[in-house]
């Protein structure tokens, strides 16, 4: 046993948990910790420009690399600035450990300078949180925090540490064992349920798999492919499930939901057995719950028992880890010819194509994304914000492996793109990372451009600049009688802004400039921003209006087709 300060214990534990990068911002109460940082040269601290950026970076780092992301902030405003990022991670079940300082123990609860009840605030948006009141408890807390964050259904864990606990000395001992009586994630599926699921699938004429984020985090892509191929079941994914099943596989039918493929939505609605795997039947994916394919038998495989039956009545639940459940299921599945069913979906797709890039002289974002795909051959990782550009990035780029699309699906956090792309690049230094941004969302976190320069990150930033809150404009156009209120956004000159930060920039206004700009960005070893001035009136199609059923999916209207 060694006597160490709380700061030293914390950093020693982070190092033992394999943390090499922390995204943070210093402030009063975490100064003892920052004072200790130079003693741990293996841990790199990335200085962000706003704590929200730190949380998104940790999140992006986790999503791209699969490792737990770590962010750090001071008390009060520093801690509350993390909240959006923590909630983003929570809704999408990504592993993150958020560390905050707090005022000294004697001042806790006395409304001291920069005090916020941050554990009270983060409680409903974390998988678990801690307020550590003694230095001797730091080691076990950090051990538990990482264990909880990365096992079971992953999620963010928040650890709050008062200033004087960082300074307090304690004996350090690395806890070898974790004993959390109340946390035993289920892993192995119930054999009887797996048998029932297999029977239902074997007997199905028109089964469909809807796979989600759980396939990505459960590292079960290969198992999913084996299952689908053996039983010849078409696979559609949720938005966050994109890449969990290779979109280049003939059994892949894209993603479903509000802006999913028309044929995917119809197939989900036509299926006789719906097999949800590592997903949660979210409203954006399923449309109006009451009218989602009422005749289908629903098989739901997920690690979180609380998701079973939460939104849709489930006939056959299998609670377990997909990596363990799928092989057992595959064993029991019969090889079957389902070419008739596959042909049905193919025909719908042929008659109702969702991904055609129409001929137009206008510079449209769909074409930019498609050009990027053709140019990179699907090897790049796309990190998006939220809105129209997010949907186009999901639709027109094709992802053949997990972790290639990083996006805030559940919380829908605008401004996620740039910091998450930075985190992704830090986590995957060899990958080609593209931040696909909206012009409005970019302005929410654009100060993090400075981090790209500080860390010399070759992040490629593509702004789909239409001068609007595009998705909001689309809703106002379609559902609010074109009553456009507060959706036109004036922006700075993004190129000048980039130059001011020391980031190279390109402006693209015509179709002819798209490919050269993408090529130039790919050949440039450093941060580069492309400001694409795209058509202002483009809408995302297909669309399931809010509150409608999947069967009510609307395709691109004639008048827009002709534009």
């Amino acid at each position, binding site marked *: 046993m060694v006597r160490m300060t709380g700061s030293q214990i914390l950093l020693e534990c982070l190092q033992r948990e394999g943390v090499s990068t922390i995204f943070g911002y210093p402030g009063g109460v975490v100064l003892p910790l920052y004072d200790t940082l130079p003693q741990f040269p293996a841990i790199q601290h990335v200085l962000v420009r706003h704590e929200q950026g730190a949380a998104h970076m940790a999140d992006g780092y986790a999503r791209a690399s*699969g490792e737990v992301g770590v962010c750090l902030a001071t008390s009060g405003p520093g801690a509350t600035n993390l909240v959006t990022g923590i909630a983003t991670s929570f809704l999408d079940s990504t592993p993150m450990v958020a560390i905050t300082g707090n005022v000294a123990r004697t001042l806790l609860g006395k409304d001291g300078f920069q005090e916020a009840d941050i554990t009270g605030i983060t409680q409903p948006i974390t998988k678990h949180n801690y307020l550590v009141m003694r230095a001797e408890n730091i080691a076990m807390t950090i051990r538990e925090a990482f264990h909880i964050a990365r096992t079971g259904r992953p999620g963010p864990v928040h650890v709050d540490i008062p200033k004087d606990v960082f300074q307090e000395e304690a004996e350090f001992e690395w806890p070898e064992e974790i004993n959390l009586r*109340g946390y035993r994630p289920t892993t192995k599926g119930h054999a009887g349920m797996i048998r029932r699921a297999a029977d239902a699938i074997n007997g199905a004429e028109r089964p469909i798999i809807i796979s989600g984020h759980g396939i990505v*985090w*459960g590292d079960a892509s290969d198992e999913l492919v084996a299952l689908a191929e053996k039983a010849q079941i078409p696979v559609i994914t949720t938005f966050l499930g994109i890449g969990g099943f290779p979109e280049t596989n003939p059994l892949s039918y894209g993603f479903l939901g509000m802006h999913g493929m028309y044929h995917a939505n119809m197939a989900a609605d036509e299926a006789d057995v719906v097999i949800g795997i590592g997903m949660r039947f979210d409203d954006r994916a399923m449309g109006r719950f009451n009218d989602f394919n009422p005749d289908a038998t629903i098989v739901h495989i997920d690690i*979180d*028992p609380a998701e079973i039956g939460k939104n849709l009545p489930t006939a056959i639940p299998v609670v377990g880890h997909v990596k*363990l459940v799928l092989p057992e299921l595959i064993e029991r599945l019969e090889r079957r010819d389902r070419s008739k069913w596959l042909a049905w979906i193919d025909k719908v797709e042929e008659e109702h194509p969702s991904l055609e890039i129409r001929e137009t002289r206008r510079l449209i974002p769909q074409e930019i994304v498609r050009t990027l795909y053709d140019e990179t051959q699907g090897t790049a990782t796309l990190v998006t914000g939220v809105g129209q550009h997010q949907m186009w990035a999901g639709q027109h780029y094709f992802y053949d492996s997990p972790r290639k699309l990083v996006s805030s699906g559940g919380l829908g956090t605008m401004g996620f793109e740039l910091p998450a792309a930075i985190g992704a690049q830090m986590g995957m230094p060899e990958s080609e990372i593209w931040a696909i941004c909206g012009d409005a969302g970019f302005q929410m976190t654009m100060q993090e451009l400075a981090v790209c320069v500080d860390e010399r990150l070759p992040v490629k930033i593509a702004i789909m600049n239409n001068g609007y809150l595009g998705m909001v404009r689309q809703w106002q156009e379609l559902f609010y009688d074109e009553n456009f209120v507060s959706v036109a956004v004036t922006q700075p000159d993004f190129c000048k802004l980039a130059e001011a930060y020391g980031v190279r920039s390109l402006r693209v206004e015509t179709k002819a400039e798209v490919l050269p700009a993408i090529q130039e960005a790919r050949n440039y070893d450093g941060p580069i921003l492309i400001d694409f001035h795209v058509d202002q009136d483009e809408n995302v199609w297909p669309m399931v209006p809010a509150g409608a059923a999947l069967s009510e999916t609307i395709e691109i209207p004639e008048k827009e087709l002709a534009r």
Partner: protein
Amino acid sequence: MTTSNGTKPGHHTVVAIVEDKPGVLQRVAGLFRRRGFNIESLAVGPTEFEGLSRMTIIVDGASAPVEQVEKQLYKLIDVVKVSDLTHDDAIKRELALLKVRCNNVNRHELLDIANVFRADVIDMATNSLMLQVVGDDDKIDGLIKMCEPYGIRELSRTGTIAMTRGQKTTTVHESEPEAIARVHQSQGRRVEADLPFSSD
């Protein structure tokens, strides 16, 4: 009206064994608030094991399927075990204190009522007396109803606690982690060693 074991129709009796840690009550209360589950009554106290507390929660089942309530409770790291005693052969008890108005003329009537309900008179003043009653919902509601005409000056109820009859228990044995496993198993789940994620 109540069922044979004293739970009102539509109400569910859920017992949660939780870690005795700061904030655990807030976690449970916060969960109920966020998920829109209505708590009718909540009673918390220590268990036979140091470090574990027992919460008895009466949930309005109309606000959410009780299965969701249980599963959401299980997701809290500090919740070790959850049991639904609604349909079990269980004893449910609550203690109430009532301060009722009375005078020299009607005091004996109140004493008669107390007698019928086997309530104890634990304090007496010239214009009031205090009753202590133990029982299930029905009995306490009945006493309250009988006392209302006299004027109830103050009422305090502890909230219901519950325990199954016979050999069966709702508790957790520290020396017996299998007990927890059995609970999971009984709900169609299996507990194994943690499977590392790709990040491990």
